Every structure is written in C-alpha cells, then in structure tokens.
C-alpha cells in the first residue's frame, strides 16, 4: 500500500521546468534589454518546494556555505553540532525518537532539488575544520572548504564525492595577517582557474585577502583594506558615524570574489562595505550597503549574474535579511528582495549565495535559519520597488 506524499510538488515542478526553459533565452536578452530606458533588474521568485526533503530524518545546522558546480549540482556545508539536543533526539543513545539527527556536513543536491550525496567530517591525512565555513566547487570536480573554528588556519580540498585531495595551511598555526604559512579562520575561497589562483577571504582571524597558487597552496600575494598592508590591531566596534571609514578590514573578511574582467570584490562584513580591487590588490573603489547596520554588518557574500558581462551582482545581507541586487559597473543598488521570517523566501541570517548556469540563485542561512533556498531567475523586469519584500511565485495555491 502506498500513501501519497505529504507534500505534493507536481504543479510547482511543472512551473519550475517551464521557467528553466525560458531562463536561458532571457539571459541572452540581457544585453539588448540594457538599452531600454526604464531601470531594469533581474527578477526572482522563491521556489518554495526546493530542495526536496532529505532522507534519514536529517536536519541542517548553521548552513554556512553554498556552491554550484558545472552540472548545476548544488553543494552546501553546514554544522550539525549547532543543532540543539531537542532537535536531534535520534542522536541520543538509545534514540529518544525517530526524529531527528544532523546530516553529514557536506550535502549535494541536483538541479531538481533531489538529495544526491552526503559526506564530511574528520578523517585520515587532514584536519577537518573545527567549524567549517564556505564551500566552492572548481571545474575539475573538487570542493574548496574553509573553517572559522578557534584553531582553524587552513583550507581543505576534496573531490565532490568526498575523497581528500589536499590541505593548504595548518590548524593551530595562525600567526597573523602577514603570515605566509597559515591562514586564520577562512570564510570562503573563490577561484580564478584561468590564472590557477584561489582568493581566500582570510577571514575571521586575519584581516586580508590572500591569493594562493591552486596547485601548491603557496601564498602569492595578499592585501588589506584599500590595498594597505593588513594590520591586526583591534579596531573596536564599527561606528557608522565615524569621520572616516576604517583603514583596515574588520573581522570577518567574508568573501573575495574575482570577476571575469579582472576585478576582485571583497566583503568587509561588519564595515558594511564592498571594496573592489584589481587582481594584484590595487584598490579601485568601495560602496557602503545599509551603512547604519550594526552587529554582524550587511555585506556577507556576493555572487555575480551569469551573463558573460556579469552585469549584476547579488549581495547576501544576513543582518537585514535581504538580497541586494547591484549594477556591478556603477556599484549602485537597483532593488532588493527578502525579509525576516521562516516562510519560503524569508530569511534568518542569510549567509551564503551562489548562482547556477540558468541564473537561478541559491542561498543558505546560518543561526536559526538553517535552510537552503532557491530563487528562480525570471528574466529582467522594470524596477518598481526598491524593497520587494518576500518574493513569492505570482500564482499561488492557497486554497
């Protein structure tokens, strides 16, 4: 006897497939759309039924990284140990309930949101991070992982299937922002495969961007805010009314993402700013985002749009619970979407962001959000609202 699934996905799946079919055409229209007079921006809607439920009564903890590979498979990394005891009764001995337990740290989903694979944790020949952070696929089928645990000073590379490949840097070895040997609590690694270089957001302990050789892991160059020599002096709390912007990055330096045209975009999270550099670390410009934001800051992670020009970038802001849509060339914000809450399309600490080949956005939430969500690219649309709020599919079934 079969019982129907509790959650029917048929209609949304059909809608999703239709949307994916036209998304590619819409991407190609971006260039011509630029010539229209009205301000246009990429438009998104959440897919409330993506991903599909995981097996084995697994739960996600703080979901602290997302990346999409060349097959449009979505990889996330999370921290099972951040789940609370009453969420993981199945981990008790003996189990206190069938529900639930922490999923393994790394999970893979296909484009339809089906669970594909899971792995991760301590093993032979490498130091699993005390607190994993960030996950970035390369084109060769590897995943690059950082960590911001108290002793994490390293980067790990695994195959997408979970086989250890190499470790750069060391745990228990951090020695400051001018060290050439180890990192200090790496937030995220972004790749420039044409140059065989990886950009390390370094991080929660150091105050720098470090560029390494992807093969050897050797640090080739590094820099701090404005391209200055990084300095680990404690700057104290961010003050939005300070007479001049901080001369150094605050912790954490949360992303450092190279663009197609040779620039590097750095998330200076608690300073509420993005700084833009050339690949050799020459400062170009900066922009502040919701400058009055205190606490965690507004600039958490960046993903570029998938058109060849990377005309737009999407900024995950886990303090204001928004995705800000920016015109990349001018660093002007065009619109934003999202709001606080636990419903589809809402966030509690939206932390990481990535795009797939169709231009769709994937985000993960840390703290008590603990989700992976997908936003479907709906093409360019005239901007009608600066703050779009929660972006739901326009055809809802509320019965």
């Amino acid at each position, binding site marked *: 006897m079969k019982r129907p699934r509790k959650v029917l996905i048929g209609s949304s799946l059909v809608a999703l497939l239709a949307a994916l079919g036209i998304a590619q055409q819409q991407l190609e229209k971006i260039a011509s759309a630029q010539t229209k007079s009205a301000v246009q921006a990429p438009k998104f809607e959440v897919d409330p039924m993506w991903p599909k439920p995981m097996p084995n009564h697994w739960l996600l903890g703080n979901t602290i990284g997302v990346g999409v590979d060349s097959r449009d498979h979505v990889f996330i990394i999370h*921290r099972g140990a951040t789940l609370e005891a009453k969420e993981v009764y199945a981990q008790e001995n003996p189990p206190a309930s069938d529900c639930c337990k922490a999923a393994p740290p790394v999970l893979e989903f296909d484009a339809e949101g089906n669970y594909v694979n899971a792995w991760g944790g301590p093993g032979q020949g490498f130091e699993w991070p005390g607190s994993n952070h960030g996950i970035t696929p390369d084109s060769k089928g590897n995943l690059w992982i950082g960590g911001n645990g108290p002793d994490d000073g390293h980067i790990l590379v695994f195959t997408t299937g979970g086989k250890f490949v190499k470790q750069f840097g060391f745990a228990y070895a951090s020695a400051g922002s001018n060290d050439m040997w180890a990192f200090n609590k790496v937030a995220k690694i972004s790749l420039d495969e044409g140059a065989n270089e990886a950009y390390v957001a370094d991080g929660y302990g150091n105050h720098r961007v470090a560029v390494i050789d992807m093969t050897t892991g050797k640090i080739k160059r590094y820099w701090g805010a404005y391209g200055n020599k990084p300095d680990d002096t404690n700057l104290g709390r961010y003050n939005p009314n300070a007479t001049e912007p901080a001369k150094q990055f605050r912790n954490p330096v949360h992303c450092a993402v190279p663009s197609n045209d040779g620039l590097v975009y750095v998330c200076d999270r608690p300073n509420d700013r993005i700084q833009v550099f050339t690949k050799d670390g020459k400062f170009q410009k900066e922009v502040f985002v919701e400058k009055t934001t205190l606490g965690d800051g507004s600039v958490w992670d960046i993903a570029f749009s998938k058109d060849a020009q990377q005309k737009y970038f999407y900024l995950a802001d886990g303090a204001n619970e928004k995705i800000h849509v920016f015109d990349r060339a001018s660093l002007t914000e065009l619109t934003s979407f999202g709001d606080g809450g636990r419903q589809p399309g809402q966030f509690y600490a939206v932390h990481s962001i990535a795009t797939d080949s169709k231009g769709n956005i994937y985000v993960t939430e840390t703290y008590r959000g603990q989700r992976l969500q997908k936003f479907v690219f709906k093409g360019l649309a005239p901007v009608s609202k600066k703050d779009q709020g929660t972006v739901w599919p326009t055809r809802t079934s509320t019965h």
Partner: protein
Amino acid sequence: MKRAFPGACAVVLLLTASGIAQSPPAYRVVPLWPQPLPNHWVLGSVTGVTVDAQDHIWVTHRGADSLEGNEKGMMATPPTSVLCCTAAPFVLEFDANGKLLSNFGGPGQGYQWPQSPGSLAVDAKGNVWVTGSGLEPAPPGGRGRATGANADPDAVPPAGGRGRGDAAARGDAAAGARGADAAAAGRGRGRGPAAPAGPPDAHVLKFARDGKFLLQIGTPGKMEGPDSQTTLNRPAAVAVDAAANEVYVADSGNHRIVVFDSETGAYKRHWGAFGEKPTAAGGGPYDPNAAPARQFRDVTCVELSKDGMVYVCDRTSNRIQVFQKDGKFVKEGIVSKNTMGATVSGQFGVVSSWGSAWDIALSNDPQQQFVFVADGHDKKVIVLRRDTLAEVGGFGTGGRLPGQFLAVGSIATDSRGNVYTGEQHHGKRVQKWVAAGR
C-alpha cells in the same frame, strides 16, 4: 512516489495489524500560507492556533522574548538594522487565504498581559480567550521551566535561573568574531530568549475580537494550589461551551481541569486525571514501564467535542484523557508511550524532553472521526480514531522546509477540513494543511 518514508511504512503496518478499515485523508502542506506579514514583523514561538466560527485563523505567540537579538534588530537600542525585524503583535487574525485581518495584544488597562501567552480560543460569540502559561518560579540557582503550557519548553525564567545558552549564539561567531560582532547582535552564550520580569502567569484573559478587555480569571503570581476556586497556575489552554456559558481551563500547574462561568468568571467545578481529586504533586517523573499515573503531569490542552465530551492532553504522560462535562472519566489513549517526559542528556547538556501529547484538534466532520495530536517531541502530527483513540495516520517530520516541523505544539481544524499547526522553539511558524486531492 519513490522515496520511502519510515512514518508511512509504520502506518501501513499498523493499519494491517489492527484491521482498521477507516483511515484519515492524507494531508499536504500549503507552502505559501499565511501571506507575508507587514512591517517587517516576525513571529516568535507560536504557542496557540485556533479557528473561529468564520473559519478565521487566530494565532498567538511569545513575541520579542522568544526572538534572538539578531532577528529583532529593529528593536535594539540603537537599532542594529532599520530593515529587519520586529516582533509581530501577540494576537493575529488571518482569513482562510492567509491574509492578516487584525491584531492586538500586550499590556493594557484592567488586566495583566501574560509573560508568555499559552494558547487561545475564540468562543461562539467571537470573544478571544488567551491563557497566561508563563513560567514556574525558578528554583534557587536553577532554571525555571515552562511546565505549564502549550507552554513553550524553550522559555527561560526572567531572573534567578541561569540563561539557557542558545546554540545559535555560537552560530557564525564560532570564533574570531568575538567582540563587536557578537556583542552588538545580542549573541553569546547564555543570551537565550528570556521572559520579561514580573510575577509568573496564573491567569486567563478574555477579550472582544477587537482586543477590548472583558474578563480576567486568576492573578499573576497568586497560586493557591489545585483546590483553589479563584486562582490558577500557568493555565495552558481553554475551551468554551457557549451553550452552557462555561469555560474549561487546562490548569497545567495545578494538574487539573477547572470550569468557570464564561461571563462572570465564577467557579463551577474541577477535577484531575481519571476524574479524581488533583494534588499539588501531580504525576511525578514519567516512566513508560510504570502503571499510568493517577494524576496529571502537564495538562496542555482541553477541547470539547460536538457530542459533549472533554478531551485533555496530559503532555508528559503521553496521553489523552476523555471526560464527560461533569468530570466523569470516560477513557484514555496513549500516544507514543516511550517518549520521555523527563530530561535527557543531550549534546549541549541536560535538556528537557516534553512528552508527545502537546495539543489536539478534532476533525470537523459531523462525527468528528479523528483526533489530530501535535507531537512536538517527534515533530509530527499523529492522527487517532476518536472512537478507539488508536493511531491511524500522521504527517510531517523534523525540519525547516514547508511541511516539516520543529516543536509543533498547537493544532486546529476549520469547517472545510483544513488543519493548521503552530510551532514553538525555533520553528516559529504557522502552517496550513489540506486534504490531498482537494
């Protein structure tokens, strides 16, 4: 569908073994319900969901004290965010399409707003009843616990007790991000949600549907035990018998059901488990291998059936007891007998486990064939046959996606057969379920 759900398999076996022909409909979630709240409002721990005679859905939640600093940045001084978010008002009314129609709640003239709203009910006249199911006083140097209640087990006493370190606290701040980062956002160990200061809840409030105060039964901080005719002890839920002008109160801390005149608040009668005299000691620690306790432990729900029966959740006893309206015991049903109601040693130390029978709703067919049990421990809804109280189905499992639950602790049905659920703990959601195929 291809994927096998262990829960579904268990149901199949149970059906086969017991030879029950009648099974409840399957339910599917409505993922985009309710509509997004205005004003960057967010829900705290949802402790009560009910449906009124117009099929409007009423929700109560614990508001700001159950939200963490970094999700209510607009409420901080100075604000850490001007864009997100702030606690929604305590009582919210939605229509069947999930549109927010009205709201009220909070302190006012002539009554004391609860530290922790427990549950709510709307009577046939459209009046809204809210219980104050807050916290029992913390033992010296210890942590109070919200035994009362639809009572959010997550609640933390205002003072005297040790703040429960919320693991989210460590969240992204796992390291390095100490100092400015962690402090301003109100994270850090021991900074879990805390109830506002004040005397512990011991009362029930009645409002007109526009929020006008009408009646208060009991007084916060005044608890005189299970024989009292004027005081309560962290009441978790109410049900109103409009024809008889009577309100039934699940008086959790007094381990009893107590009935008052719903217009005057005058005492009528009360009883404990099995219709016996309740004692202050209650049922003691739960042991699945012991004979059923003769006293209630945590009385967390009360519902009236169309055929005049009173259904009561004894949460940490994993059972539902059924009575006549005069308190005569009829029967009991056990739900997930092995669920512990004491404490378990968890990854972050000893935490409480809370039994299986958190709240119930009766199906709305003329015979009310089914009983829906919100099991916040196992994070699912269990469906019982009402006549036998035998388990015949269920839906949901743990998680944060639509159709999944964390601590599902309140449940209600409407006239069209839809089901609504509310989640405490980190769930903080209301979800709508429809019979599949509809």
